């Protein structure tokens, strides 16, 4: 074991330990790390936005090629209107840029969602996962019982799941029973997603602990 002599490693390690200390309970060390984190990251993104958005997309073009890029005065104006938010009297002017942003989001959202989350999924459920699945057997396409069964399960999960989301029908009788099967499928999927994720979370921890053990404490395995 030979503890690191690098100030960078020490800073990283102390901050790492400070965050971990939150697991025991809230304490001054965590509070310091938290405030460094909030302050430094706010500054980081501020600088980042300045150098990657405002400078290249707004100020530089306006400064150097104004004649062809004069229309950038519009977003500049909208941006300045946004700043009006800080005034009590003219705060309402900030609604203009806000309305623009929301409008763009809504318009862009509606088309791409219909395409990728409805139409493509519709195609996947019906055409890509047919209830009768054929595979080649001795040169001829024949029904593959296991794959067909799997696809039927998939199909049932989709349909009963969708039925669960019906708001204008009381969950009673036939609808209630089917929706309940829908809930079961949802629960299976939640459990599976959870289980699937556990590994990701552990991986992150392994990474941090490797840093502490190998880089900071200098223990070699």
């Amino acid at each position, binding site marked *: 074991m030979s503890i690191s002599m690098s100030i960078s490693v020490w800073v990283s390690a102390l901050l790492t330990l400070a965050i971990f200390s939150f697991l025991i309970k809230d304490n001054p060390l965590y509070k310091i790390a938290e405030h460094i984190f909030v302050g430094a990251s706010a500054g980081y993104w501020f600088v980042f936005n300045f150098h990657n958005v405002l400078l290249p997309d707004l100020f530089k073009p306006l400064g150097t090629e104004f004649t062809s890029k004069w229309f950038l005065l519009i977003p500049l104006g909208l941006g300045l209107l946004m700043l009006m938010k800080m005034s009590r009297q003219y705060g309402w002017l900030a609604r203009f840029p806000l309305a623009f942003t929301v409008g763009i989001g809504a318009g862009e959202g509606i088309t791409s969602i219909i*395409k990728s989350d409805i139409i493509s999924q519709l195609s996947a459920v019906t055409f890509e996962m047919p209830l009768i699945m054929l595979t080649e057997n001795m040169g001829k396409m024949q029904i593959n019982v296991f794959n067909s069964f799997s696809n039927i399960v998939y199909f049932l999960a989709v349909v009963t799941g969708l039925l669960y989301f019906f708001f204008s029908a009381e969950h009673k009788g036939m609808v209630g029973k089917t929706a309940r099967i829908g809930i079961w499928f949802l629960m299976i999927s939640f459990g599976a997603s959870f289980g699937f994720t556990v*590994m*990701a979370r552990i991986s992150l921890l392994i990474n941090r602990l490797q840093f502490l053990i190998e880089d900071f404490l200098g223990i070699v395995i």
Partner: protein
Amino acid sequence: MLNYLKTLDRRIIYLFVLVGVILPIVGGFLFPVQSSPMTDSVVKALKELEPGSVILVSADFDPGSQAELQPMLLALLKYCFENEINVVSMGLWPMGPTLIDNAMDSDKVRISKDRAEQLMLEGRKVYIIPKGEAGTEQYLEERDGKIVVVKETEREEVGDLFDDAIYYVKGIRSLFPEGHIKYGENYLAAGYQVGAGVVILDLVASVPGALKTDALNSKPVESYPIMNGIDTLKDIDMVFTLSSGSGGIKEWVIYGNGRSGVKVCGGVTAVSAPEFLPYLVSRQLAGMLAGLAGAAEFEAATGYEMGEGIRGMTPQSFAHIIIILFIIIGNLVFLVEKYSENK
């Protein structure tokens, strides 16, 4: 006892998880890794690429997900350069390109002892951590026909290499002979691209038009030979995204594959993987690596046994067992309680 377990302080669980992960890291032994169909599909798609193909590697993640995605990135780059697949790199996330730079030039890439010797003789700088001495950086050098370990000031003869030391080079680039990866011919870094979905739409229309200049020399990308014959995204042989959230694999599938039909593969964090399964089913996604297990399987499939993914699988297994044991305890407590209530 029952009551203690029922109201178990969550910090006890934390302690078990911590110990369960640290012990195997310090103990350092490996579980064998087997591949899964999801990973196989990625390997299959990669094997279909001919030497000289161009793959667009997009780093759409930030250091927060490095633990899972960086091993995939390293293994992917290693595979590409070994098989003469040319790489254009970019990132939809601001910190992505930095992570690719790290993978190329500064991340520790572990190698075996034999490989270390061979690379050193080829003139690459090979680093070593002899057992029990980390802390300061040490590397190997050949002086007067002998291999020596060079610390900052002193130098020490090794003669034969240590069996139990860790050998590594810095960055994927150092795994190959000088000149194997020519910038502009085999590799091009296009840097951070602002705008996620919009960038991809731009790429669909025109790759040089969207990427504009490269990150190293700020020259137009079309001035590099690697871009010969590449006009729109269709001309790229595969897009490989390392994705950890919004502005990533979903956009590549919807806009990239959806609009141009380009083959899209991806490495994702395990947490987001289930969300993209429908795209695998609908074949909009050619293959997917999910989480550290995906990385480990990919490393095994492409022949990189020293990878972080494979090494990480052991603490991973321990932690899973601990969580599973806790779930079992929780259920036993619950059942015992129910039983005694019924009595």
